[in-house]
């Protein structure tokens, strides 16, 4: 074992002071270079990543809201369209039913008119036929009664007058 001299309890030594000063400066650079720089670099990277994530989230949210508004618009448009379609269909149906009703009415009245006309015609015809029949009959009867031919023309006029009176 070495016998070692010791310093006095307070002994100022300029070189030791300088070495200690340099020691602190060196330790400052060590801490700056090997502790603070890497950690701060990492923190900065983390901050940037967080910011980026936030930005991405924000854009995604904006996109979603944009999409949502588009869909809502589309939905509203579809709703309107459906209502339009229904309204259109209803008006069309109403129109059609009106038309059909009017058509039917017209047809019915037409048919009625034709029927009436037919009836009138038939009646006329029947009357005429009857008239002819009556005239012929009366002519026959008169021929038989009188026994002679009378001027047909005069006769017919006479019978017609007669029938007119009958009427």
């Amino acid at each position: 074992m070495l016998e070692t001299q010791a310093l006095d309890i307070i002994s100022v030594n300029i070189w030791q002071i300088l070495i200690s000063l340099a020691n602190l400066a060196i330790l400052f650079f060590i801490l700056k270079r090997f502790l603070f720089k890497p950690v701060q670099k990492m923190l900065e990277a983390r901050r940037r990543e967080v910011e980026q994530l936030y930005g991405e989230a924000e854009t995604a949210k904006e996109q979603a809201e944009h999409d949502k508004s588009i869909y809502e618009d589309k939905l509203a448009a579809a709703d309107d369209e459906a209502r339009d379609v229904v309204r259109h269909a209803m008006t069309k149906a109403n129109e059609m039913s009106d038309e059909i009703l009017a058509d039917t009415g017209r047809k019915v009245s037409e048919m009625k008119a034709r029927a009436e006309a037919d009836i009138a015609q038939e009646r006329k015809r029947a009357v005429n036929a009857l008239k002819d029949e009556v005239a012929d009959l009366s002519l026959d009867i008169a021929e038989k009664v009188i026994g002679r031919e009378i001027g047909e023309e005069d006769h017919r006029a006479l019978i017609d007058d007669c029938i007119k009176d009958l009427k």
Partner: protein
Amino acid sequence: MNESVTADMSTGANTAKTEQTPTRKRSKKDLLIDILLCAGMILPLLFAIVLKVLNRPAADGIEITGAMIYLTVNLPLQPLYITEAQVNSWAVMATIFFLCLFLTRNLKVRGTGKRQIVAETVVKSCDKLVRENMGDRFASFAPFVAAIMALSALSSLSSLIGLYPPTSDINIVAGWAILVFILITRAKMQGGVLNYLKGFTQPVPFLTPFNILSEFATPISMTFRHFGNILSGVVISTLLASALQWLSGLVLGWIPVFGSVPWLQIGLPAIFSIYFDVLSGVLQAFIFAMLTMMYVCTGFSEEDYNARMAKRAARRAAKAAKAQEK
């Protein structure tokens, strides 16, 4: 503590099992580097202890002396003594260096490793402390304050493993205080050298010598505050140990063999060292760092800084306007 360590190891083993072979190889390499870094942290201190054990002091007993001289180098003015205190402070620096490397290994942006959390906490709290006490414009002082705290606290705490605490050597602390003084002066001179010199004649020219005296009193008071606190702890510890040895001999000395061991030295000095070594050491480191921050940031006040910045901006604007005219 033990439980958490074993839990960690078991989870580590599980992940290693599930991982592929190349990653396991890499983790082995990682482990090797970690072991080397840990060795780098411990070996300097062990070396200092060995050096101390090999060199017995000339005067044994309760004599209170300064640091042991390992080596004398002849230089002009004064011979340079490489003492225990110097060697121990280098050992502490090496330990801090390897600790930094150990903590900042494998930093990840999304990492949540224990080391990373420790490194982040240290950096963030130092940064916050400096920003709160000195303002944002002195944010670059954070590593310096961290260096002062780490060096001072670990130097003082090195007495716990039987080393001579470098902080109880006046030269060590004086070196730090002088560096701080240089920084204070630099901060004061940022307002202009003439302003700095004019500051000595404020508030009345009559006070100039006192102002100069008080300027130099700052590093001296910082030195003696720190050095005296740690040295007093060492002195009291030594006195207490010798007193207990004497008491032990008095009470138990009559027993053969058994009585020759200073039994009373066991236990009680440890309780005192909680204050004198741990609390006082850490507290003085904190005080030294706080004083550094206070002195530096009051050397160049925020208003001066803002005024100077405004002036500089105005000058630059004027120069730009002139250049545009041309």
